């Protein structure tokens, strides 16, 4: 258990922090709306979200702040779910830890620079390795979508294991 | 070559012929056996659960006795004895604390200079098939032999051959001119020491083994364990009585068959001690002359 209000209070003390608040479900549409609103109201240029794992929602928040006109890489996340509330049972300890992690994220955010994605052209042809049921099906799927496919099979014929089988379960239809 | 020899209790009485035949055929192979001085019983399986430390200490004393006599290799024909000796050896190497404990019980410290080998292992590795073949004067002339291993390959710390389909004895039989049969009962359990306490179980277990050997055309069964020999041979009469069968298939020790092929006098191999006399078979096959 983390005392989120306490975390907010503490980080507010950092001079560079212009605005801090606690939101329930900040990843939801409503939550994202509040973030965007705060960006506009306070002219924010770095955003830190202290919540779950970046694996889960980093991209969500990056898109959110991009929508408010900030480069998406000026965003930092502190994971106070897996790294705190799921593993630290004592409330005081958990809150202290959450404060520390959030502060660390804030100081990193202060040093972030905008980044701009690279672009590269796409070769519109797929390679399928293996000519069994999966490889054949993949080749058909992709070709039907209108793209070229190269199917590579190690043996002299495509067909794979499936071609060795008599009828298949559970419908007992022919496998060839 | 001089090596240590640990006959074990059975080879002193009920399996005396295993003992004499081993001595005879090793002499022929130019190996002299030096019995471990004043050896004691290995404790067999009862010691195991009745008294754990005793189970380790008894073989430990034998290892010390061998070491004192400067015997680096110990030939142990009985698989159970061998398993216990090798188990203690392995445990002592693995756990120095145990060595200390056993030293306190037995009074002397084992320096790990003596190690046990089973008969099959010894023939395969230390003697070798070539040398064995060279000692043969009377090949077994296609004698059809069922090699029976029992639990030998499964015993703890015994690492002789493939567990499910051992071939080492089969290869030895082949080397001395016999014809080992291919059968799927070679590692079936004979009932071991239940022979005395629950005889009827042994009868039930041995019957299909004998049947399978006969079905595959075996003329005799060869074993490398006193308990196997006793259960497979001595109990044939009881089986015949109980199941109305008529088994009379000779069960020989491997060393006896080797000795025969080396032309050793049957009496020296203790053939006369077998309950089911193999002589008529050997005469019939022309291995013995009339």
């Amino acid at each position, binding site marked *: 258990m983390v005392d989120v209000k306490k975390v907010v209070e503490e980080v507010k003390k950092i001079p560079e922090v212009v605005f801090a608040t606690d939101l329930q479900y900040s990843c939801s549409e409503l939550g994202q709306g509040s973030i965007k609103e705060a960006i506009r109201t306070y002219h924010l240029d770095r955003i830190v979200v202290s919540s779950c794992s970046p694996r889960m929602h980093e991209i969500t928040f990056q898109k959110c702040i991009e929508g408010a006109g900030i480069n998406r890489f000026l965003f930092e996340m502190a994971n106070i779910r897996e790294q705190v509330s799921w593993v630290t049972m004592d409330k005081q300890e958990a809150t202290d830890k959450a404060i520390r992690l959030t502060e660390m994220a804030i100081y990193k955010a202060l040093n972030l620079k905008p980044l701009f994605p690279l672009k590269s052209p796409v070769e519109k042809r797929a390679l399928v390795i293996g000519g069994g049921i999966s490889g054949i099906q993949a080749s058909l799927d992709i070709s039907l979508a209108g793209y070229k496919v190269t199917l590579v099979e190690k043996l002299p014929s495509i067909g794979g294991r499936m071609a060795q089988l008599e009828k298949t379960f559970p419908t007992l239809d022919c496998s060839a | 070559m001089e090596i240590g020899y640990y006959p074990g*209790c*059975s080879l*002193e*009485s*009920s*399996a*005396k012929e295993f003992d004499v035949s081993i001595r005879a055929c090793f002499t022929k192979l130019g190996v002299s056996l030096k019995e471990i001085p*004043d*050896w*004691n*019983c290995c*404790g*067999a*399986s*009862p*010691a*195991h*659960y*009745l*008294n*754990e*430390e*005793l189970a380790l*200490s*008894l073989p430990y*004393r034998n290892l010390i006795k061998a070491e004192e006599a400067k015997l680096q290799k110990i030939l142990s024909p009985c698989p159970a004895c061998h398993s216990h000796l090798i188990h203690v050896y392995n445990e002592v190497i693995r756990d120095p604390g145990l060595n200390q404990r056993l030293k*306190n*019980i*037995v*009074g002397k410290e084992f320096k790990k200079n003596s190690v046990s080998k089973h008969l099959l292992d010894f023939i395969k590795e230390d003697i070798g098939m070539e040398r064995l073949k060279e000692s043969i004067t009377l090949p077994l002339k296609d004698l059809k032999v069922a090699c029976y291993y*029992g*639990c030998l390959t*499964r*015993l*703890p710390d015994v690492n002789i051959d493939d*567990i*499910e389909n051992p071939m080492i004895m089969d290869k030895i039989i082949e080397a001395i001119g016999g014809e080992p049969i291919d059968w799927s009962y070679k590692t*079936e*359990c004979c*009932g*071991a*020491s*239940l022979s*005395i*306490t*629950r*005889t009827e*179980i042994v009868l*039930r*277990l041995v019957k299909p083994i004998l049947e399978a050997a006969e079905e595959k055309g075996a003329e005799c069964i060869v074993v490398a364990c006193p308990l196997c020999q006793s259960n497979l041979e*001595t109990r044939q*009469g009881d089986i015949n009585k109980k199941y109305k069968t008529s088994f009379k298939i000779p069960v020989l020790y491997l060393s006896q068959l080797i000795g025969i092929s080396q032309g050793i006098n049957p009496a020296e191999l203790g053939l*006369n*001690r*077998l*309950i089911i006399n193999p002589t008529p078979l050997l005469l019939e096959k022309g291995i013995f002359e009339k």
Partner: protein
Amino acid sequence: MSYPSNSNIHLFRNEILNLCKQDVAKCIQCGKCSAGCPISPEMDIQPNQIIRLIQLNDREGVLRSNTIWLCASCETCSVRCPEKIEIATIMDILRKLSLEANIQAGEKNIVKFDQIFLDSIKKRGRVHELGLVIRYNLTTGQPWKDVHLGPIMFMKGKFSLLGHRIKELERVKEIFRLSRRIKSQE
């Protein structure tokens, strides 16, 4: 039976684990141990069921069974177990626990035989087979058991009448004295 509840359920499992490093929780109950056990028909509880009962903490049920005494230690179960559980080793430990707990063994004669066996070693340093069998038959009240084998075994020289006595018998007796013993044996 009612299943044991709460924290006690793993007591027996942990006891076995500590004594012989075999974890019965690995068992998937495939039954291969019972399928291959040569003594299975005579056992009141099948080997796989023994493992199950240990999982369920039924200590007494297990230690009272005749199974643990009938096990021939042939190791078939251990070498074929897909989870590498050494069932034969567990049986050995169970015999020990059963004696320690002073539970009336399902197979009294086997215990008797084993004790006479050790006694024989203690007295001579080696086992005297003839004496062993005679004493066992007398103790278990079946003096005529296997007596039909007697003459032929004797004739064939398979029994030595007196048996061997080793020189350092005192040493062996000392080993017996110093080795950690089990209470109920006394």
